[in-house]
């Protein structure tokens, strides 16, 4: 009697079973129930046949047109913003290297400027008389400095004379092949 009652309860689970809504343990029970209940077995067979028929029918007869895939692929390509043409050519590691070189160049420029700044030598200061004669003006190098400094294969730093003796500007040129800029 109990078995019969259990069977009826399990028959009520048919919809949940077909909808994939039974927990694993109950699903196993229902699988066993199928061996003894012909009505449920028929319903499950009918469902499986229907699934197969629908899968075959939709798969065979309902395919999107090839132009839809093309449109979507084009759309996906358009919605991805391209990087700046110059940056696009350089891999990430190279971009980092260039940034580091720019920073290094700035430090070098500052050092370069401090070297060029005219200062009285220490000895002269030591031997200087106690009475203060007229101080001679510091001599400033009049010839412009145009040294070409290569920092690496990727960047060339060229100090530019801007007319200020204490300031040196270093212009950095990336040594990327000209062909990559053409694109």
């Amino acid at each position: 009697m109990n078995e019969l009652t259990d069977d009826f309860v399990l028959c009520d689970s048919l919809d949940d079973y077909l909808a994939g809504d039974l927990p694993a343990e109950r699903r196993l029970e229902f699988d066993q129930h199928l061996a003894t209940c012909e009505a449920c077995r028929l319903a499950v067979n009918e469902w499986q046949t229907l699934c197969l028929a629908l899968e075959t029918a939709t798969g065979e007869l309902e395919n999107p047109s090839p132009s839809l895939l093309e449109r979507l692929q084009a759309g996906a390509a358009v919605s991805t913003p391209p990087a700046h043409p110059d940056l696009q050519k350089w891999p990430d590691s190279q971009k980092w290297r260039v940034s580091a070189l720019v920073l290094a160049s700035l430090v070098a420029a500052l050092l370069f400027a401090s070297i060029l700044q005219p200062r009285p030598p220490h000895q002269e200061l030591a031997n200087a008389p106690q009475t203060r004669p007229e101080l001679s003006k510091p001599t400033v190098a009049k010839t412009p400095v145009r040294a070409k400094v290569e920092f690496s294969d990727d960047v060339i730093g060229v100090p530019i004379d801007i007319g200020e003796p204490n300031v040196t500007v270093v212009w950095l040129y990336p040594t990327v092949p000209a062909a990559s800029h053409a694109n």
Partner: protein
Amino acid sequence: MREGLAEHLPHVYRLALRLTGDRHRAEDLTQETFLRAWKSRSQLKDTRAERVWLFHIAANIWKDELRQSRVRSALRSPLPEDAPDRKPTPEQCSELRESLERTLSLLNSLPVQQRTVLYLVAVEGLSAGEVGNVLGINTNAVKVNLSLARKRLREQTEKTAINSDLRWGTTTRDE
């Protein structure tokens, strides 16, 4: 996402067909689904759930569209029979194709929610909970719709079989 485009496209398109009941609208809905998915692809955490996620987007877009344009009549109309690729060529006039077309026609004759639920469970293999998430309805509603769809299909199949028997004269008055 872009890699899975060709793989998921037919499935999303077929769901769109269930929802819209129209090939052109289904293509538009599919296109919009992928474009929206592409824009919000960062929200997708589990790539295994990509297809269900796409279904969810498609169902939401269609719901919004219905809300805006209220094209309810489209829901009840079955797929047009005069679609060019549905016309069987002499080679395609096989019994199998006819049977497949009959099956599709039966599916498309169901109300929109029943045919969509049935498609997602029977063909896409989604559980009632997943279907509920995709369509924004509760699990019980999914199960009721599935049960109704099965019942209606069974009735339709029996009716078709009886009509077929009548047409071929195998059923007599005495029976």
